[in-house]
């Protein structure tokens, strides 16, 4: 109850009643905001959408004490995480946001109002920076797509298509793409392939079962570039189901496996192996009759030792770069 007292003191000049604080933030539907943000802007990634949703939340919460607001943010972050099947990508965003608030508070000598005002005024900045970061990834990585090379990719990562688009601008028609189709998402696969062909990149579509064959045919694939939902602390990635498989196949054929991802996807999460992804995902559905259920958004974990390099907006880095960044931002490794 100490916070209530403190907030009462703080609130005196602002004429806001503490009771309203509670009702307002409770009314705010963070989950709906998050999803509408994701829908409204196809350029938004999950961590950035989560950050924007939290900023929108700050908008509705009247200025109160620091701790109360931090509590509200925390509660809503938890609610948001609980609402989705795989909370890891957006957790990267909420963690980053929390850390940002904390560190700006330190810089501003605890003047919470200044931080809040700054955040509200620059709400779009996060999204804007995220788009810039994606362009940065393309800039950092496009030279890897050398003339005459063939890039194998799968999924619908905007970083990857951005990178390929950038490469196509400088080397039109000089490289090819092998796209691994997702049999569960024919529409998405059609869209990505369409985009690539539109860019003037000769694109071949294969299914996941053909990857090993294509890779083993000498010089058919020069590199793999995939996107990531989250880059874990150890430098591994959580990504669309199938990435791990492709990474393993690439390793056994000695094909470099690159990951294009912005640094805001770096997460403090540390995965030991496939078993613990940090959330529940039951892939196996044993039945005697009927067909097994299919997961909506299955992901897998590709360990860092299968990843050649991470292509980030800060340059092309080794997987161990992630932990340095995490230590820089958070000061500790996890939790």
């Amino acid at each position, binding site marked *: 109850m100490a916070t209530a007292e403190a907030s009462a003191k703080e609130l005196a000049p602002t004429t806001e009643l503490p009771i309203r604080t509670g009702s307002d933030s409770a009314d705010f539907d963070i989950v709906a905001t998050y999803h509408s943000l994701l829908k409204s802007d196809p350029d938004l990634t999950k961590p950035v959408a989560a950050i924007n949703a939290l900023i929108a939340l700050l908008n509705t919460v009247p200025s109160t004490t620091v701790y109360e607001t931090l509590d509200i943010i925390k509660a809503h972050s938890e609610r948001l995480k609980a609402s989705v099947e795989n909370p890891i990508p957006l957790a990267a965003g909420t963690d980053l946001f929390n850390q940002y608030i904390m560190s700006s508070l330190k810089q501003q000598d605890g003047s919470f109002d200044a931080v809040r005002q700054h955040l509200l005024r620059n709400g779009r900045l996060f999204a804007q920076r995220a788009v810039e970061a994606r362009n940065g990834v393309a800039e950092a990585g496009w030279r890897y797509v050398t003339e005459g090379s063939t890039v194998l990719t799968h999924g619908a990562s905007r970083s990857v298509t951005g990178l390929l688009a950038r490469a196509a601008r400088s080397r039109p028609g000089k490289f090819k793409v092998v796209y691994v189709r997702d049999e569960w998402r024919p529409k998405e696969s059609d869209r990505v392939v369409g985009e690539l062909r539109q860019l003037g990149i000769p694109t071949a579509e294969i299914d996941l079962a053909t990857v090993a064959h294509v890779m083993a045919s000498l010089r058919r694939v020069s590199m793999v570039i995939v996107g990531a939902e989250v880059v874990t*602390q*150890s*430098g591994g990635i959580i990504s669309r189901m199938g990435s791990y498989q492709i990474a393993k196949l690439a390793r056994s054929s000695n094909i470099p496996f690159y990951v294009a991802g912005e640094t805001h996807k770096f997460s403090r999460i*540390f995965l*030991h*192996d496939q078993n613990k992804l940090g959330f529940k995902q039951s892939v196996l559905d044993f039945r005697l009759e009927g067909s097994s259920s299919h997961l909506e958004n299955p992901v897998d974990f590709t360990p*860092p*030792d299968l990843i050649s390099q991470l292509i980030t907006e800060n340059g092309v880095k080794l*997987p*161990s770069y992630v*932990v*340095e960044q995490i*230590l820089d931002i958070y*000061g*500790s*490794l*996890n*939790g």
Partner: protein
Amino acid sequence: MATEANTSAPAEPPQAPATQNTQKETQPKDQKAKGEQPAKDGEPAGEKKLSGAEKKKMAKEEKAARRAQAKAAQASQGQPSGGQEGAGDGGKGGKGRPKQDGQAGGQHKGHHAKPAAAAPVVPKEVKPAVPECFGHLSMARRINITQADKDVDPAVLVLGQHMSTFALSDSITRLEATLYAFKKVIDSYTTPIGTTFSRHFTSHVLNPQIDYLTACRPMCFSMGNAIRWLKLQISKIDIDLPDLEAKKLLCESIDNFIHERVTLADFVIANTAAELIEDDQVVLTYAHHHLVQRALLQAQEQGKQFRVVLIDDAFERVGVEHSKTLAAAGIPVTYVSDLGALRSNLRDVSVVLVAAEAMFSNGAMYARSGTCDIAMAAKDLGIQVVALCETINFTERVSIDSLTYNEIDPERLSDVGFRLLFDTTRDRYISTIITELGNASPTAVPAILRKLEEL
């Protein structure tokens, strides 16, 4: 792993008789508490009975003889006080760096005097048991208390005896004990007139203690780190600060250091490791380490149902007690006496939990000899290998083999062979290291080291 090697030259096993005397000594921690009366605790080893005054007298009488002998021993060990001073001095130069390095300098003349010093009573010339190529490796030696430098504090004297007999063996216990002993040293120190604490203490009081400890057993990496830290703290003390205040300040910061880097660190590591263990898992561990034991017990307390396969160190049966403790806590334990049939023992294992003596900055793990064999076999079978280690054990040095840094087991040094105490596991055989900062992959060690430097 080359842990056993044959040697040609005949030699006596100089350690055996002396060591047995002290091995039944009481537990280290109590000793430090009453560190001022080492004589009492040391009863079994005859010399220790002497009180401080008597000892001094006796030391005086034997001065000439002792000096000659000690000098020879020290010089041959490559650790005369000059060299040792560098041991913690900030460690800028390669030479002065803690422990093993110091030995490396004196490798050529090293083994001639080593056995002689270990058994000083036997005047006859002992031929080296360790071949030249292993000459850089050092070994714990029993140093007669009367042989020690007169400046060595009683608390440190006892500590040295414990270290040389491996009553205190793992890196963290030794670190803790050393810092407590140094607190005693600081406490009993008075700055002589005409000098100041920060200028006099390190060179005239602290360094002899460090030399003595290093002579008893080569320093471990954590001790090197802590001593470097301590010397930095001492040098930071304001010269105008009165003695009493300075001593109080220093003792407080030592307490804080132990609290943060050892007590809290162990707590966090044990917790994190316990979280890792899941129901129905089989955890394999090697020999005994208090961190692993703590983690397993904690997981058991949390109500997790798991099984432990304990592989013991065939040369040092520390796992017997360990397995009894675990079994008493209700954890099903399979005890395996040695590394034989390693692969079949690993078959059902889900995770290998080991503790590291130190981590090198290339991600390699320095741990009890035999750890590497287990890690390699486990990795080969796709089992994750988790290493527990406090960050105080991290060293900025690099090692890719088990021979650059190591120690010879003084109890298994005979004319036909010897054993090394540690081995180095390369980073690719380790999946995760758990430190007080959290889980990390071994490649994160340099990043963590850099972070620690900032703190």
